[in-house]
């Protein structure tokens, strides 16, 4: 892991290698590095609090993609055994088990979310279990980050940019979908049942698009006092 003191070194490095940058080019990005010397794309950004919609980054959720042939019983059995649950074959559904969440994202494609740090051991176990079975397990934990959106206006906020139908009659807890939010490809999952007309979603977004999506949410929530 990164060595101590790195957090403070960013500014020093800037000063060491250039003369003071021109006005207006200095980053106002909050939060450089965290204590572990790592940084998530939305580090230090605070979403609206106390309003009818809140959102926050869930940095470093462990993420693995799993590819394999669902008609291959060996594959399904081996993967299911490691995960402790049958992997879903119903489109756009996810199952949760023991802190793991397995999302169907394609007929031979699953996205697994695990607590931070659990992705490595899980990948090793899956690879061992699937030895000799055509499959692929790829760690994409850092490719994406997750923004959790919740509250009475969560659905309204998402529908400012997401064209799929999120109405409770057609989309509920346990469902997930790859879709877009304006220019950003997103993967969203509804994590909780509706309460007080609101719902909770996890939005997976590519690292480089995270700030765009975040800024869109910030702008979009303003009308509700966000």
């Amino acid at each position, binding site marked *: 892991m*990164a060595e101590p003191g790195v957090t403070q070194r960013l500014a020093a*490095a800037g000063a060491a*290698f*250039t003369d003071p940058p021109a006005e207006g080019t200095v980053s106002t990005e909050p939060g450089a590095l965290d204590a572990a010397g790592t940084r998530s794309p939305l580090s230090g950004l605070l979403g609206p609090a106390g309003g009818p919609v809140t959102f926050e980054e869930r940095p470093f959720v462990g993420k693995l993609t799993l590819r394999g042939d669902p008609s291959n019983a060996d594959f399904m059995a081996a993967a299911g055994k490691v995960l402790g649950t049958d992997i879903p074959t119903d489109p756009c559904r996810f199952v949760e088990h023991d802190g793991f969440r397995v999302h169907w994202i394609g007929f031979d494609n699953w996205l697994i979310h695990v607590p931070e740090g659990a992705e490595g051991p899980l990948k090793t176990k899956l690879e061992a279990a699937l030895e000799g079975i055509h499959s*692929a397990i790829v760690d994409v934990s850092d490719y994406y980050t997750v923004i959790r959106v919740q509250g009475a206006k969560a659905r309204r906020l998402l529908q400012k940019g997401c064209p799929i139908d999120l109405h409770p009659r057609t989309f509920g807890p346990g469902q997930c979908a790859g879709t877009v939010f304006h220019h950003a490809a997103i993967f969203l999952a509804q994590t909780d049942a509706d309460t007080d007309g609101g719902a909770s979603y996890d939005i997976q977004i590519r690292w480089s*698009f995270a700030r765009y999506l975040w800024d869109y949410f910030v702008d979009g929530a303003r009308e509700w006092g966000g």
Partner: protein
Amino acid sequence: MSQSYRIEGKGRIDRSKPIRFTWNGRSYQGYQGDTLASALLANGVRLVGRSFKYHRPRGIMTAGSEEPNAVVQLEEGARTEPNTRATMAELYDGLTANAQNCWPSVEFDVGALNAKLSRFFPAGFYYKTFMWPAALWEPLYEKIIRRAAGMGESPEEIDPDSYAQHFAHCDVLIAGGGPAGLSAALAAGRTGARVILADEGAEFGGSLLADTVEIAGKPAADWIAETVAELTAMPEVTLLPRTTVSAYYDHNFLTLTERVTDHMGPRADDSVPRQRFWKVRAKQTILAQGAIERPLLFADNDRPGVMLASAARTYINRYGVLPGREIVVFTGNDSAYPAALDAKAAGARVEIVDLRTDPKGPLVDHARAQGIEIHAGCGITGTRGTKALHGCDVAPLSEDGKSLADEPFSIGCDCIAVAGGWNPTVHLHSQARGKLSWDDTKQCFVPGYCQWPTRSAGAGNGTFDLAGCLDEGLKAGAAAAHEAGFGKGAAPEAPAVELSEEGPARQVWIVPSDVPLGHGKKHFHDHQNDVTAADIHLAAREGYVSVEHLKRYTTTGMGTDQGKTSNVNALAVMADIRNARIPEVGTTTFRPPYVPTTFGAIGGQNRRHLFLQERTTPMHAAHVANGAVFEDVGDWKRPWYFPRDGEDMHEAVQRECRQARETCGLLDASTLGKIDIQGPDAAWFLNMMYTNKWDTLAVGKGRYGVMLNEHGMVIDDGVTTRLAENHFHMTTTTGGAARVLGMLEEWLQTEWPERQVYCTSVTEQWAVCTITGPNAKALMADLTDDIDVDPANFPFLAYRTGTVAGAPARVYRISFTGDLAYEVNVPARHGLAVWTTILERGRKHGLVQYGTETMHVLRAEKGFIIVGQDTDGTVTPMDLGMNWIVSKKKDDFIGKRSHSRSDTAREGRKQLVGIMTEDPNVVLPEGAHLVNQPGKPPIAMEGHVTSSYMSPNVGRSIALGLIKGGRDRIGDTLHAPMMDGKTVHKVTLTEPVFFDKEGKRTNG
């Protein structure tokens, strides 16, 4: 004269809330609930604008969104909005509006001279006048035409308001909240279906808001209130007042424009969007937009004071405003009689001019009983007054309605309420490509078959009586909900209404005058575009008989109102000329939007920093802190160069280039595309996708590959490394990342589904720090303890894993500079810390961070191509002098077959060469063409410059280019004529490698 036209005790306005507003610089008072139009009429303001072409004085003609005349400039400065219909603009405190298309004022308008010269401005005037010479089209004629065509002024400042978009889905979308639309919503809503009901007005109720009728024994207003209350209580019903369903696209995709705060006026706080643009997917739609009354075509029918009878009634009953004190109702049907009766009751002197020779029925009897004089069998043959109407001439018509049967007589009046029949609002139905059919009885187009699940109800369906509207609405609502999966389809019983029996109508499409058509008096059918019946005759004489030609020749039906009041009249005139039935003449295409839509609403939040995403790498914060100047590479913001104090771009790049070769340099290469490829057939797959061989690659080693399309042309390149027997890590160009993955998937899924390969994008999983230069080894040694970085043990194109700068890393010995280089890949979360650590540790090794410009120069020094810059989709590997990378041993790879095509295999194709200018200080512009001998054009082009830089390491300018037969012409002299037409640079063709030609530096 404050609000002297108000009718005591009438209207839905709130008299306890007076509102001040400014019109043409003068302050007036209106009430909450007024529109700008009703408030102006209440204050006796008749003249509201000048017409488009002749600058004739014009007044308010309608009370709805179909208004052709009263389009005004609303507000000033950044919030100014042209072409706002005064009939739709709700009054708010401080509203400011001005008349358009007049100078210096609407009262005294210089442009009115056009009216005097009107015989010189026939239809097609612009086409005829501004024809020759063609050279003047753009520089002169367009300017003249644009100036003359005044339709208000666009704002010149940034729009200070905010806007939003909203995606929605529903079972039943209902356009129009009048009696039919409300009934439909009720019937559909009661089934539990998801219903959206949108109406463009501030209140639901539509025509009922101006009616005195009773429903179920109660005033219509009570029925509206009860219905809206019931709908409001339904959780799955969304009520959208002030919302126009503006467009109907394929597969029941519709857009709606909701005016969220327009009625409140400008606000400093923009947190709530001014307008919301809805994108709705509806399983079923019900179109209940009602009908628009047709004006009558009579002589000089455009004076301020001439308005639709239904509008007059709306002003009286809904807004409590008398549109005139002496009103002549001119009609050919019964529907105008209630307007006459209401005007009479409100205190106006009323006379009726009825085209019918023997009007009869309860309404006619009622009018007579009220002492209203009816001039039966008569028409209006002319009007008097310029800025305000003060009289009309009336004469009996001949039996065929084409001439006068007697001398005209005069009636004094300040308002003519015109009723020429009704046109169902079929716009959305037609936008959806629904057919229209002509109803001979009703004399109007009604909706016919449509391929999408839609139905029309009420007046919009040609059902003009209230009982029919309510009944049809309920049935449509129930049926639509049923088809969407809700309810049994049975409609609730319609509430009882008094049956209004109407007599037959008489349609006279052109009311004759005492002078021939087009001589001295004008029969306007299109008020907004100043098109007259005589213009249609002219168009027909000149051969423009097709309705599409007619429209473009005369401009009828164009403009902000899109001919809502004029189109059918125009068709009728043309039908008369051609002696054809109206449906034979046809209709023009109805296009979205139904009414003008603010660009802001369409754009929504997609502006300013949200207009386009800016993709940044994990190291971006450091780049910003280090003063990088950024270059846009696709959506990415990549550091272009890092200027130090006082340096311009040239100086910074020259320094970066020199230092990267002398000591070492650091590049953020995170944006390169990365694809994880796994499976037993992975090597076979790479053999097919790339031109060279991959099955022979050892595990732990990488290889450069060139990817072609089926035409054999280079489309991407990069190094792919074999991580394990069946596991590869492919890199692509930054811009090609998504395209290449798409291509891999396309071949796998469509051509080789039996092959066992999985591709996964990992582009952003890895942050990439490229360290290059003679000191790279020493710096790397300072960064890692567990990787032997000595090139002797870690050879070129090999791959190692370990810990670099404290982070888990994959290190590739890949070089895009030709120098000893290491590509350090770390998980993105470590990118910033690793970058910062490398910068710090690099100090003692003379490390310089460099951007994409220096990257370009360094690779050009080595003659390394950039796909997309040195190639353009027409370049083969052989054209690039890279025959070595095209395997002769493989049976196949994508693009192979095309290499034997005659054009691909021929001699003399453009080939990549180096280009040296005679003057080493001259940097040729990229794109410059080379010729054999300078001279006067036309001149044969030999090729062009693709890359060109000043190279500090070569000590002179260098360039790459694609030159015909270039490989065989190395050493030849060519010329590069410059854009100024004078300068010509002499150049020599060379090998495309300028630096370290022996390639000794790759291993330090």
